[in-house]
């Protein structure tokens, strides 16, 4: 049971959603946009968040698109992860989505929620970082399309009152060779010790990671080293690990040493499979 009360709004358009947020903010309701809602419900149940109102954006048509516009794949932020995997327009994203939570939970978790979540793994963002996707964001200033690298810096950097409407990805990225590897402490469901998504474009390997540091990331420095053919694969991986953007996590899932060991093996396998 959720021990707090909040109001529930169900706008049918982007403008209604934005206006609702502004109205509710003005009235000190601490509104939150609500997609799949799984994190909001679980955090609210434990009294960790206290929204005075939630704005359910699932009825907004633009948030439910899964189609091509010319050579661009357009994915609405309210598409569920299971729907993404079922339709499979972007195989690497499907694999990332399939690694999140479990099948039933993925019937509720949305693409937008997975990217914006407080839980730091946010694994669905990895393929989008590799494919240089663009985020369509709505807010009081209107609708803007922004390169993901400009707004996803460790986490989504949305202004107050903004929400993700869609994610746009160029078709050319969808069929490139890729690897997705999620390593857990135990079993097939749960948070990762290491998740690696890799994609090969123009004979260069791009890599993005979750579970290694306290945020998901793609590092051009790491990619530079991993694609340095003058080094052996082992040398490349060792140098890549030296270039991690933050301390390696040390928690009940795994120690720093163990995570680095798993990370090293995972990258080596990816290099081997992708011919790096």
């Amino acid at each position: 049971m959720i021990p707090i009360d909040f109001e529930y709004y169900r706008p049918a358009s982007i403008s209604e959603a934005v206006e609702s947020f502004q109205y509710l903010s003005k009235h000190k309701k601490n509104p939150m946009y609500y997609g799949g809602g799984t994190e909001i419900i679980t955090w609210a149940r434990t009294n960790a968040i206290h929204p005075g109102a939630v704005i359910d954006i699932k009825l907004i048509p633009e948030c439910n698109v899964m189609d091509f516009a010319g050579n661009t794949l357009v994915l609405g932020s309210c598409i569920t992860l299971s729907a993404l995997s079922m339709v499979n327009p972007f195989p690497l994203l499907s694999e990332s989505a399939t690694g999140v939570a479990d099948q039933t939970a993925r019937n509720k978790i949305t693409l937008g929620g997975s990217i914006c979540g407080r839980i730091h793994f946010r694994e669905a963002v990895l393929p989008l970082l590799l494919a240089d996707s663009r985020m369509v964001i709505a807010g009081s200033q209107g609708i803007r399309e922004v390169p993901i690298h400009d707004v996803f810096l460790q986490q989504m950097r949305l202004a107050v009152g903004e929400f993700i409407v869609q994610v746009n990805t160029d078709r050319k990225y969808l069929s490139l060779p890729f690897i997705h590897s999620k390593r857990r402490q135990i079993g097939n469901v749960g948070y990762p010790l290491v998740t690696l998504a890799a994609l090969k474009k123009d004979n260069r390997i791009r890599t993005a990671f979750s579970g290694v540091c306290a945020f998901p990331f793609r590092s051009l420095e790491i990619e530079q080293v991993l694609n340095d053919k003058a080094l052996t694969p082992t040398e490349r991986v060792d140098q890549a690990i030296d270039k991690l953007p933050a301390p390696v996590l040390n928690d009940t899932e795994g120690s720093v040493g163990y995570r680095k060991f798993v990370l090293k093996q995972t990258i080596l396998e990816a290099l081997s499979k992708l011919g790096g």
Partner: protein
Amino acid sequence: MPPMEFFDSATYSIQFQVNSEWRKVRIRAADTLLDALREGLGLTGSKSGCDNGDCGTCTILVNGLPIKSCIMLAVEADGQQITTIEGLTNSPMLQAFAEKQAFQCGYCTPGFIVNCHGLLNILPDADDETIRIWLESNICRCTSYEEIREAVKSVFLAHSTDGVP
């Protein structure tokens, strides 16, 4: 205030179809669907386990799709079709669980049955790997997994040998 559908923090009446019957229930906007089913409608077959979307014992079908009712607000179900374990009393999946004794304490059983019933309807030709992936959504603390897997597979096998396309 923009004109739109909203539910404030007082109680409201919503309506959804539960096990083929339209039912009204009064809820808070912050009530989960599990709360509404158990406390509002007395449908206690859906169990409260982790209340965190992990264990799957509260699984119900929303428009045929398995959903953990502890991580869905009741207001989201307004106007939708809900199936709970009470609506599956004569289903092949429930009978298979009984015949194969695919339970010990039985607390997780409704969630498993509802989830697998949903799988049978959505993917009647599901292969072993798909069945395995879907079964990962539910946890059995008594570890009856082998019997559960056997029960589920027996239903899919019967379904395929019956010649149902």
